[in-house]
């Protein structure tokens, strides 16, 4: 029983980071209705910005965090300009494949800058786990969870309480109507991309500072985890993204504990598959028409 509670707690902690990744995905997806495969790799580029500062210039934790976010935003905008902005309506699949090509590009760029497979990343906090009765909670996990909840709250507030959020929701609801009330849709899409990358940057920083190491594979990992969490939680729903992440985390930790790492991943994909077949809209989302088909 204690194990079960402990695992659930750990799952929630890890799930928080998945939820964060899904949050950024959801923002891009909601606005564009297109899939950005290089979402993870742009975060990875941000992480490499931070790692270079840390390794070569001895930057502190905050400076590294800022560098990760800035790097993710810059590469995120690069992806938007190259893979999304120039694509006509109906070319959603070209955007997706193009974002995949840029993924390959970003991964190789990272390897050129730092050629070894792994590099150390500065730890969030060092120190023993907190003991709460019979349960153990890692302090960095706690920070990650707090960060995820805070950031989700900030995103939710920004969407529902600011002019930017108002415009964004207008675009999500109906781009033409948004145009008609005076929203500059093109500009807003770039801003949304930048915001999503910033969210991803924070998520990436927290995850890496807990893992204390960075590899070029982080890009693929982030894309996959974010995508799975988003699909489980429901397309286009902010609370759904977070919930999907948490569910994924809990499922993973429990199945890892019971059956080992390989079966953990098997379970994660099975949950995803089962959700897609039985409830394509995910936990909280609805079935949204995604512009991936290639009608001319």
């Amino acid at each position, binding site marked *: 029983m204690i194990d079960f509670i402990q695992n659930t707690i750990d799952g929630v902690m890890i799930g928080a980071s998945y939820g964060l990744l899904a949050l950024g995905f959801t923002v891009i997806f909601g606005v564009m209705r297109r899939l950005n495969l290089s979402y993870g790799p742009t975060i990875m580029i941000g992480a490499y910005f931070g790692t270079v500062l840390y390794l070569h210039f001895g930057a502190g934790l905050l400076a590294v965090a800022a560098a990760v976010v800035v790097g993710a935003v810059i590469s995120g905008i690069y992806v938007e300009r190259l893979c999304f902005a120039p694509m006509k309506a109906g070319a959603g699949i070209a955007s997706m494949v193009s974002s995949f090509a840029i993924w390959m590009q970003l991964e190789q760029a990272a390897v050129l800058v730092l050629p070894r497979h792994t590099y150390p990343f500065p730890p969030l906090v060092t120190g023993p786990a907190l003991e709460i009765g019979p349960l153990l909670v890692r302090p960095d996990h706690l920070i990650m969870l707090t960060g995820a909840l805070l950031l989700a709250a900030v995103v939710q507030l920004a969407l529902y309480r600011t*002019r930017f959020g*108002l*415009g964004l*929701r*207008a675009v999500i*609801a*109906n781009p*033409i*109507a*948004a*145009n*008609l*009330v*005076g*929203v*500059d849709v093109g500009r807003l899409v770039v801003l949304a991309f930048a915001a999503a990358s910033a969210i991803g940057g924070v998520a990436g920083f927290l995850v890496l500072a807990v893992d204390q190491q960075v590899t070029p594979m982080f890009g693929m990992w982030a894309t996959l985890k974010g995508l799975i969490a988003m699909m489980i939680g429901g397309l286009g729903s902010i609370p759904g993204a977070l919930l999907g992440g948490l569910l994924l985390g809990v499922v993973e930790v429990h199945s890892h504990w019971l059956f080992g790492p390989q079966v953990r991943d098997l379970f994660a994909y099975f949950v995803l598959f089962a959700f897609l077949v039985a409830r394509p809209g995910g936990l909280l989302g609805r079935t949204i028409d995604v512009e991936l088909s290639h009608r001319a």
Partner: protein
Amino acid sequence: MLDVSDLVTTYGKIEALRGVSLHVEGGKITCLLGPNGAGKTTLMMTIAGILRPRRGSIKLEGTELVGLSPAKIVSRGVALVPENRLVFPEMSVRENLLAGAYQRRDKSGIAADMERMYARFPRLKERREQLAGTLSGGEQQMLAVARALMSRPRVLLMDEPSLGLAPLVVAEIFDIVAALNRDGTTILLVEQNAHMALKVAHQFFLMEQGRVTFQGTPGQLAEDEVIQRAYLGTRRVAG
């Protein structure tokens, strides 16, 4: 006020507007009648900047609007109440109105205008925190009008405000149109409901297959004649 001259807009392969010219007088209600597919909605979307014309010009008090983004056109003072209303269904009534004022930065002015809208549309006030998608058709139409007014337009374009509404609600909408005009708003109105439209309009245009085929004042043609020309065909069948 608003001068459209020789406007040509193509929609894919369809030439939807084949050289449309018309003049909307300031402070008046101008009405556009014609069968489906005549190009009325295309004209409205072109004026609002959603569609780009092949050629021709649209001038608002002498300033060219062609080539401006829809957002710029809104800030110049042209607002469109689109066909089928297109309210933001997942936003509250209040948020829809706020979105209407998206180009404006004067917080106190926006707040004052919100109150004015609530005064004019009491039912919107009652439902201010309700999601727009849950409103009835008539309420959504009022919201769409109010949302457009929030940008303080000099010219209000309305595309078929009576579409799909029950007769009583249609009468209500037209009362609003007339009232807005009395307060000094210039209105260009596209309508199917010719009777209502001719009752409020100061001048009207008939459109057919992308062209203006008639223009005049409501007294000029008998109502029956308008209907005959616009919808039932001029060629009388035998028998």
